[in-house]
């Protein structure tokens, strides 16, 4: 059990800085998800916490102790790798017991812990098999078993579900969440999948190009994204962005339509509208020229363009829609559910 404090953390490879002054506090028992596109530095950040990558400058504290200079083994952490990283020549039991044996725990204690973890993860019947005799999902459980028998201060997950099929991923996601709640161990989880991030994390750290774009609860990120990047990354389907000209509480869209928005700014800005916040309204100001329909059953995604322009626009309407291609559908938007961003910096305009 421990809190983690990241202070002004920088990572460079030679002259190239890949992580820029990352700050963040993680409370004891919290489940933090680091999310971002490929190459944003999220795995590097996790590996720095693990001690597998050196820290260029800044400080990492686990449970109040500075760990920058500590070996991974001295940090009291456990990690689950993307490719499971099981020891191929050892049985499941030996895999799970390896770390305990090194800690020189008594034999019956090791056995007790391994059996207990195997019980929780439902892999008891596989204890004497080799990793290659297991399926992907079972290997994933063994990798988690190896982490939990150690009873560490911190769990680190490096995209642990990305090698599983979609159905198993959803199931394992729930299990990881349940397991973490049950054990109450501080966890950092890295993923590029925003759904995984939203569902798992107590709080999310969104990384982009080595910068922390936003660090907050999933709902904060959804309701008040701090930048165009976060707004576009969190939520599915992604938010619509339209250039707008602001004047008090009115925003003029490229096609001349006028929308009511919170009065914050004057001049050019980027207007963000979530597809699910576009309300069907035959008299609404937003006219969508339909290009394509995606039927999802419970709702329908209408992809198209703002009438008479090339600005892509997507709306999500409940139930089954059957608009013909090229037809016009009109929507309105509540001012409280519109987002305004600075055109140049992409930052959210202050409320």
């Amino acid at each position, binding site marked *: 059990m421990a809190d983690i404090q990241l202070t002004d953390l920088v990572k460079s490879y030679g002259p190239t800085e890949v992580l820029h002054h990352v700050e963040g506090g993680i409370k004891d028992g919290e489940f933090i998800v680091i999310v971002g596109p490929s190459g944003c530095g999220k795995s590097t950040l996790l590996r720095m916490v693990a*001690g*597998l990558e050196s820290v260029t400058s800044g400080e990492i504290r686990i449970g109040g102790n500075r760990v920058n200079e500590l070996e*991974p083994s001295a940090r009291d952490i456990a990690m689950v*790798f993307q490719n499971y*990283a099981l020891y*191929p020549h050892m049985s499941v039991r030996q895999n799970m017991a390896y*770390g305990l044996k*090194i*800690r020189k725990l008594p034999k019956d204690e090791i056995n007790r812990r391994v059996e207990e973890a195997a019980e929780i993860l439902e892999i008891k019947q596989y204890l004497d098999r080799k990793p290659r005799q297991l399926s992907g999902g079972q290997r994933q459980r063994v990798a988690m078993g*190896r982490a939990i028998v150690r009873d560490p201060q911190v769990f680190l997950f490096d995209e642990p579900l990305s090698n599983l099929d979609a159905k198993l991923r959803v199931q394992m996601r729930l299990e990881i969440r349940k397991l973490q709640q049950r054990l109450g161990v501080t966890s950092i989880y890295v993923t590029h999948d925003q759904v995984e991030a939203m569902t798992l994390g107590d709080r999310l750290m969104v990384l982009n190009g080595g910068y922390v774009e936003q660090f907050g609860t999933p709902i904060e990120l959804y309701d008040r994204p701090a930048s165009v990047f976060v707004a576009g990354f969190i939520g599915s389907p992604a938010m619509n962005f339209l250039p707008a000209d602001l004047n008090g509480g009115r925003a003029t869209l490229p096609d001349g339509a006028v929308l009511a928005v919170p009065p914050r700014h004057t001049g050019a800005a980027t207007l963000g509208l979530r597809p699910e916040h576009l309300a069907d309204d035959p008299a609404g100001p937003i006219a969508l020229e339909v290009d394509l329909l995606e039927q999802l059953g419970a709702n329908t995604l209408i992809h198209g363009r703002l009438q008479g322009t090339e600005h892509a626009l997507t709306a999500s309407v409940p139930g089954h829609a059957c608009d013909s291609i090229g037809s016009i559908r009109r929507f309105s938007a509540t001012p409280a559910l519109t987002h305004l961003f600075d055109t140049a910096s992409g930052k959210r305009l202050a409320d």
Partner: protein
Amino acid sequence: MLKRVHFPTSALPYLLVAPQIAITLVFFIWPASQAMYQSFLIEDAFGLGTEFVWFENFEILWSDSHYLASFQRTAVFSLLVAGLSMGVALLLAGFAQRVVRGAMFYRTLLIWPYAVAPVLAGALWVFMFNPTLGIFPYFLEFAGITWNHYLNGTQAMALVILAAAWKQVAYNFLFYLAAMQSIPNSVIEAAAIDGAGPARRFWTIIFPLISPTTFFLLVINMVYAFFETFGIIHAVTQGGPGTSTTILVYKVFNDGFVGLDLGGSAAQSVVLMVLVIAMTVVQFRFVERKVAY
């Protein structure tokens, strides 16, 4: 199962493999059968007549204490050569893997000895260890060791083992390095997080995972020590002093071309042939199947 594709019969494939078959026949099968035939013959002292004697040459070998001593010597020699060269190669590969800067430079240097011809390698060591001119005897003198491999059989053996092992290190190094690089990094990292230090990681993770390579190299090195070290021994000690470095393959040459006991020499080479066939079979049976872990 792959579907077998049938091509129209043609002479081309036979023509294409013909050169290889011809070479095998002329340089391997024919001499081997000649040796086998020769091993059943005893030639008189003047080389005027031969007598077909079935297995008498072999019977003589088994009761020849010199031959049995040579057998034992070869076993010691090849085990030490294999052990030494594989041990050093393993160590170097382990370190080379940790090198970050200039890795290519080290690896290239480490591979060079493999390109040196055995006789030249032998000559190199002869010069370095020459009792009067060599640099090593000069240094050993300070440690109170008098080096003269022309007189001291143990020192002579140590020298040929050293030279033979040195030449093979490069080859073993390459295989070990490749084997180590095929272990996923995350497995090593997982062990590090589990609390294993570098030495423990090596013995409990890396070494077991490269065991197929170790087994493969053991067979290859044994074959090397049995047969290909001839050039080194010929250049360094010529089997002496006395017979202290006369391993089996050198004895074949010595008895046949120096002692002119063609029948006995042929019988010895047949024994060697059986040994190498046995080792090859072991290698194919076990290595090809991959050592299971």
